[in-house]
């Protein structure tokens, strides 16, 4: 049991560290993303969180974790749909960038680590990752994507999505606090 807790803590720490030096953080130093690249980053970032949530729905038995995961699938699917709709409307075809590719590579790694965990260890690792991931997304959207978006509608859509990510972060932090009490 102790081993599991230690493992979870170590994993959470590892996730935090990797995210601190994540592709999103690196992106700030690299060339400014174009609108098609921004669109792809948003699409990929949404899909990654949906996939994490689907994994949580397969593995978790905790009611709070499950309802959070259901919400992530629902909210991010809605957002994904509206981003894709906007891209079509604006004739912007999403284009892969170093940032989007690194995001995908990073999520494969995180998914593999999450898949190896069970029970409380999984719940904590999933929720810790959601806290870190949403914090990173908020940072990326606010500091990189919004300032670099050229199209006014795309910029406004990103500004509109920012409160949603903050809402998710607040929810994830609430669950994180309740899991740490146990």
């Amino acid at each position, binding site marked *: 049991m102790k081993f599991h807790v230690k493992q979870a803590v170590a994993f959470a720490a590892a996730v935090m560290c990797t995210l601190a030096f994540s592709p999103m953080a690196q992106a700030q130093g690299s060339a400014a993303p174009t609108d098609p690249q921004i669109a792809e980053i948003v699409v990929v970032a949404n899909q990654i969180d949906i996939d994490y949530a689907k994994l949580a729905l397969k593995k978790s038995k905790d009611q709070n974790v499950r309802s959070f995961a259901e*919400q992530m699938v*629902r*909210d991010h699917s*809605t957002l994904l749909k509206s981003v894709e709709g906007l891209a079509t409307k604006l004739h912007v075809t999403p284009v892969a960038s170093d940032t989007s590719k690194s995001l995908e590579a990073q999520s494969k790694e995180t998914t593999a680590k999450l898949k190896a965990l069970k029970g409380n260890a999984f719940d904590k690792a999933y929720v810790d990752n959601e806290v870190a991931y949403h914090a990173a997304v908020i940072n990326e959207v606010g500091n990189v994507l919004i300032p670099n978006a050229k199209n006014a509608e795309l910029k406004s859509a990103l500004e509109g999505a920012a*409160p949603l990510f*903050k*809402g998710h*972060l*607040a*929810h994830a932090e609430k669950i994180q606090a309740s899991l740490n009490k146990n």
Partner: protein
Amino acid sequence: MDGGPGRAFGSVFIGENAYGSRGPAHANRKNALRLEIEVLSKNLKKQFVLSLAVALLAPLVAFATATPAIAQAAPEASTSAEATTEAPAKTAHKVHVVIITNRLTYQPPTLVVHVGDVVEWINKDLYIHTVTSTDGKTFDSGNIYPKRSWRYKAVRKGTYDYSCTPHPDMKGKLIVR
């Protein structure tokens, strides 16, 4: 109101039962008699039925044609009555509206109402939200889907902080005086 239809059905049932209790012989005699009466009064009956139909239908037709005029006049009458008589009354209960915006806020964030007033939260966002009092007991809307709303009648004085369960940084305050 509730006793109305029940009583009507009751009287029909009692009538049938009284006829049945007289027995089959009596019924046969009565049938024969009825045949005679029917033959004799066929023409009379036809007239009666016709006049009855006219008597019954005439007011119905009159009522039906008059009804639209009444229905149209009624709302005007009631609104003017409200304006003159209900406004100064102490018991007038208002309906207040709070919009859940697509920027994930409650507008207005703080609302002051009186006991008996109704508050309606309208979800104009793309996402599901809730209106959940933070004391965990006074009110909880459950999921309010996009384009849907939820109403709450303020029953007790007090200050109630509330938030959205799926987006806990969305906060509002309801003050009931």
